[in-house]
């Protein structure tokens, strides 16, 4: 496959994933607009949050805090804590985007959400290099536009819509995050990082707070993943392929009978370091 063909194939996959994320963001943005309206936000205030802050969890939290009368310094402090995980995203994307001009990277930073990170890092790793347009597709088309349009719809039309929970909107975000994480698992290190990250996050969320748990999981997961020896981590097999059965199954199980997968997806370069 040539470079152009690989780019087109990866962008098609990106668009397909982005469509699912856009639906998710549309649902959540709508619920956010609805919540903001119920808390007394005007349409301008709700839209200011969605365009200027552009951080779903922090916006939902702010609605609750404003409604309960929490002082603004407290809201700002909690926002900083809730969004601290973005530091990990920007650090992880930095090696890929080093050749993008500074001004555009500054713009990218504002649009760096959970979803934009998940879509772009998956796309870059499939390609083995950065694709700036791919980042903008993930950040703007699947996230910024649906989130803001849905916020506007929620705050203006919310009263006419039945209970959104009946539509199962609440399950889209966690399902999307777990699904995108699965797409990034190509070896034992990633698998261990994901499992430990999830476990630490849940423990931290129960003991302290969800925001602290997520950051703790994001820090501890990769640290434990790195403990997997490089020789073992070098064996890669995207989750769900026949090759992954061979890699992840317990000794003595059906994996021993699995045949090699001639059509396994290409191994992303640098199971260790990214090669943008």
């Amino acid at each position, binding site marked *: 496959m040539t470079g152009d063909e690989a780019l087109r194939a990866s962008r098609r996959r990106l668009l397909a994933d982005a469509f699912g994320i856009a639906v998710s963001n549309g649902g959540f943005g709508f619920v956010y607009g609805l919540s903001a309206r119920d808390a007394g936000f005007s349409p301008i205030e709700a839209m200011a949050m969605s365009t200027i802050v552009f951080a779903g969890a*922090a916006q939902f939290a702010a609605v609750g805090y*404003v409604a309960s009368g929490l002082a*603004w310094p407290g809201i700002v402090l909690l926002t900083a804590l809730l969004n601290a995980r973005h530091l990990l995203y920007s650090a992880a994307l*930095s090696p890929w985007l080093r050749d993008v001009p500074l001004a555009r990277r500054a713009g990218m930073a504002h649009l760096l959400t959970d979803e934009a990170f998940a879509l772009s890092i998956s796309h870059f790793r499939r390609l083995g290099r950065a694709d700036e347009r791919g980042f903008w597709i993930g950040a703007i088309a699947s996230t910024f536009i649906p989130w803001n349009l849905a916020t506007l719809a929620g705050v203006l039309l919310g009263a006419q819509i039945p209970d959104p929970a009946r539509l199962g909107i609440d399950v889209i975000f966690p*399902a999307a995050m777990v699904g995108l994480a699965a797409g990034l*698992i190509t070896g034992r290190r990633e698998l261990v990082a994901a499992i430990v990250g999830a476990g630490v996050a849940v423990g931290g969320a129960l003991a302290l707070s969800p925001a602290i*748990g997520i950051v703790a999981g994001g820090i501890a997961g990769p640290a434990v993943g790195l403990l997997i020896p490089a020789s073992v981590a070098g064996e890669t097999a995207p989750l769900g392929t026949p090759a992954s059965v061979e890699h992840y199954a317990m000794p003595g199980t059906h994996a021993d009978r699995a045949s090699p997968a001639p059509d396994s997806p290409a191994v992303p370069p640098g199971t*260790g370091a*990214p090669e943008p």
Partner: protein
Amino acid sequence: MSTNLVLLAVLMFAATYPSRALGLLTPGLDRLPRVALEYLQLVGPAVLAALGAVNVMVVVGDDDLTSFHVGIEWVAVLLCLVIVARRRNLFLGLVAAVAVVVAARALGFAALPG
């Protein structure tokens, strides 16, 4: 129409942007030692799994106390995971996850959140 909270939005932006920008705008971050780059490579799966797990397994009550949650959402997310792993199709996984939750709630097998 009130615009008082626009200033709060600006302050929240000021609290959020540094964490989003620090990594992207710090020069030389791409020249980190190999082990640091390998660590960053693992951040994606760890954070995304953490977000998914916390959203499904932890509930925050009205009193801001957290509790462990077991429900139909586990089945939905697991189904999405299996579909993505086997079919490489996130959208199909999301549709299946939503369908399971909607059906379970409509049939009374699962409670509505909150």
